[in-house]
């Protein structure tokens, strides 16, 4: 076999970074830079640079044994049309947007067929008035960020969305004033401030020439999103919600339906026995939930767990049926990034008998047919996508929202608030060489932490000894850019102690 070269989009977040994946004669992968890509100029972050470790080939399985795709699809359809599967009551479909628009659309058709909807896992959407939807869905363009007068930053670009760093620096060069209201001091900000949420409007000095950069993910607090929307409304500032999945913007447009459930909600449903069958499309709750072990335990309660995926991830091992599809970079299809730009996968170079990249769609089509639906082909789906999901930034049409914000104020005594700085490594529960937490000097002194030593964190679900790095940040916080076995949510109250 010859070397294959694929032009694709980084699966790490919704930024839409273009890149090449080179698959050599032995199947070994390497990333190459695509300098003309508008979102990233070919530049990649830590996660993008490590993509060869991220992609892994999934294997079709039935009840834990290897099977052909055809057989897996057949069994999946049997399970889905079984007597005890009562559609709309105890079935949930989940597709957070880790695959192409075309596969997501096909998945939606299956949901239609079954009389249900595909959940994108962002519960926030169903809790917000529909008028908010466009504003939350697609933000300002990345180029626009460079030309604003003021940026209010509520994310940590270095750790969470590294490709934002250069946009913000460029904005500063062009005269923008950058205020970070994040959780630690950032070098790229003119000002690092921890402002009382009630004072954002008066303190941040935003106007219609400014932009608010914040984020939205399955574990985001709705109150927070409302507050951000209110801030944008009152100040007339533009707003950009960064999102974690490569096609988060795309699935959001494809899966409008009311009654969207968040991942935590679905997990509760399973735990309480209300959901008996779960079908996931490139979405692994074990990776996505803050507490992996707890998530795995809950999933085991399902009668049917059907996984359609291109990756070998933890959920595959406990699934009843795994339907394997080709790796994401090899799929024919498109993704929509956070600015609403449609980006296509292209098979650039390789063998003459190129695989078509439609194995995933073909499997979904067969499944749909077994369920009594119509056949689906790539081109029709792609045309449909082109028609239905063009999106630009639109002026907010919503009205002031009532909100209450989660308070993460200082904690007493030996306790601390452990907060996840979500980044691509965390969403895919993948190792990064950041086995440490971030704490401030006061905590070091208070606990008597030793240079080069460790801090012990504890909660109801476990304990962990971990190294620490000192940062300028508010008292009582412990930030982590990797999943820790003590966390129960995006934010977890933990005990702290020096390891002697």
């Amino acid at each position, binding site marked *: 076999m010859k070397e294959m070269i694929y032009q694709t989009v980084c699966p790490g977040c919704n930024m839409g970074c273009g890149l090449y994946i080179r698959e050599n004669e032995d199947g070994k992968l390497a990333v190459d*830079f695509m*300098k*003309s890509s508008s979102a990233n100029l070919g530049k*990649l*972050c830590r996660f993008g*640079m490590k993509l060869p470790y991220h992609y892994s080939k999934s294997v079709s399985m039935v009840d834990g044994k290897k099977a052909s795709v055809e057989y897996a699809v057949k069994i999946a359809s049997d399970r889905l049309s079984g007597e005890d599967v009562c559609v709309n009551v105890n079935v949930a479909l989940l597709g957070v947007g880790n695959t192409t628009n075309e596969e997501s659309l096909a998945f939606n058709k299956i949901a239609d067929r079954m009389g249900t909807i595909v959940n994108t896992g962002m519960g926030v959407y169903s809790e917000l008035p529909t008028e908010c939807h466009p504003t939350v869905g697609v933000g300002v363009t990345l180029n626009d960020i460079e030309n604003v007068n003021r940026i209010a930053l509520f994310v940590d670009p270095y750790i969470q969305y590294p490709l934002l*760093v250069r946009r913000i620096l460029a904005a500063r060069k062009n005269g923008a004033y950058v205020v970070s209201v994040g959780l630690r001091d950032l*070098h790229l900000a003119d000002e690092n401030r921890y402002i009382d949420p009630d004072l954002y409007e008066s303190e941040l000095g935003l106007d219609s020439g400014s932009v608010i950069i914040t984020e939205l993910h399955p574990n985001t607090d709705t109150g927070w999103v409302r507050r951000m929307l209110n801030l944008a409304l009152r100040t007339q500032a533009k707003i950009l919600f960064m999102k974690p999945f490569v096609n988060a913007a795309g699935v959001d447009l494809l899966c409008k339906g009311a009654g969207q459930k968040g991942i935590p909600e679905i997990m509760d449903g399973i735990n309480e026995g209300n959901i008996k069958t779960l079908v996931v499309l490139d979405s692994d709750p074990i990776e996505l939930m803050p507490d992996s072990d707890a998530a795995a335990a809950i999933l085991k309660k399902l009668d049917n767990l059907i996984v359609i995926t291109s990756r070998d991830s933890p959920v595959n091992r406990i699934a009843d049926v795994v339907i394997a599809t080709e790796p994401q970079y090899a799929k024919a299809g498109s993704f929509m990034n956070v600015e609403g730009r449609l980006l296509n996968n292209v098979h650039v170079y390789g063998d003459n008998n190129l695989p078509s990249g439609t194995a995933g769609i073909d499997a979904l089509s067969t499944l749909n047919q077994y369920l009594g639906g119509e056949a689906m082909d790539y081109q029709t789906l792609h045309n449909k996508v082109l028609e239905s999901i063009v999106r630009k930034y639109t002026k907010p049409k919503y009205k002031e929202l009532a909100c209450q914000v989660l308070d993460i104020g200082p904690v007493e005594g030996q306790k601390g608030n452990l907060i996840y700085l979500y980044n691509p490594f965390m969403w895919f529960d993948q190792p990064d060489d950041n086995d440490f937490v971030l704490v401030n000097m006061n905590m070091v002194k208070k606990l008597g932490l030793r240079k080069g030593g460790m801090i012990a964190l504890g909660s109801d679900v476990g304990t962990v000894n971990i190294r620490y790095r000192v940062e300028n940040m508010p008292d009582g916080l412990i930030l982590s850019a990797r999943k820790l076995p003590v966390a129960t949510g995006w934010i977890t109250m933990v005990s702290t102690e020096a390891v002697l």
Partner: protein
Amino acid sequence: MVEVGDMLVGYATDEDIRSRGASGGLVTAVLAAALEKGLVENVVVMKHINEFEAVPIITDDVKEVLASIGSLHSVPVNLAKYAVGRKVAMPAKPCDAQAVIEQAKRGMIDLDNTYIVGLNCGGSMHPVTTKKMLVEMYDIDPEDVVGEDIKKGKLVFKTKNGEEKALRIDELEEAGFGRRESCRFCTLKIPLNADLACGNWGVIGDLSGSATFCQVMNGKGVKLLENAIKAGRIEVQPASDKAIAIREKVNNVMVDLGNTLEKKILPVIPDEERLQYYIDQLADCVNCGACKEVCPVCACGEDSKCTTFHSLVDNYKMSMYHMVRMLHLADSCISCGQCSDVCPSDIPITLLKSRFAIPSQRKRNYHPGIDLDTPPFFEVMLK
């Protein structure tokens, strides 16, 4: 018969190749012949995606070689790493050839079996900057561009409907567009370190635009040309004295310009401000490692000192990774600009490296990537 040192003007015999080539298609014809006649097993060329995007491929397919024809001034890749561990023929800008030789010094490339068809290079541009420049300075839709050229200090773009528009390069650069920063102060414009040095400087009269000036640098260059002549792919004739003089003159102008611009691009920073300057510049590093991955002279592989001894848990004032790399590249850095291109934080990392490498290299009159006779510093000085 071709001999080392020959100054020739040549072109592809095939009319189609000749007309599609950047200037006569000689380079493409030579590469195709090398593949057809078994001089090499593979050729490294650019797979075009559009006017602003191409990806290097390693191919044994003559069709791909013929399709790669033409100079892409807005595709600033370095081709050296694609030649590592293979027996290939390849086109090479001077910095590609330099990197190939630095890799060879470190045992990663077998130079005897690597054929380097050098291309003169007045500089390359970043594709996104170029697109922006087209809109803002030329008032041309980037989609409409079908070709570009450098003529008399001007950058010329041709559009679908046959129009041409030219603007002075120095004015474009003044406005923040034009060539990449590292190309502006590069002074190796003719690849005397390659096996052949090809370019359009010195192609005059009727042949202008449809032939390439080619200097034969060594025995491999002789082989490449003779092979292509024998295959009936190219025709060459001696260059006139006038042609040679013109090429020389243009080169001198470019080298002088490079020297002048170096002082502008790398101004002296006073002793007491330098440390803070480096600390500030590197403070936005997100530790992606792209600058090392893309570095065409680095031969360390995945487990290297710069990464192994750098830990994210340390919040040192300066990054160990960068300090080690500054030191390691003091001899081999060719200021090709690849690291700046790929840095997600837009750190002018090439300029930082150059600030360390250039003085060290000058002090020892050391020119990286020129020939195998000058091994890495360490060896030279230990004697």
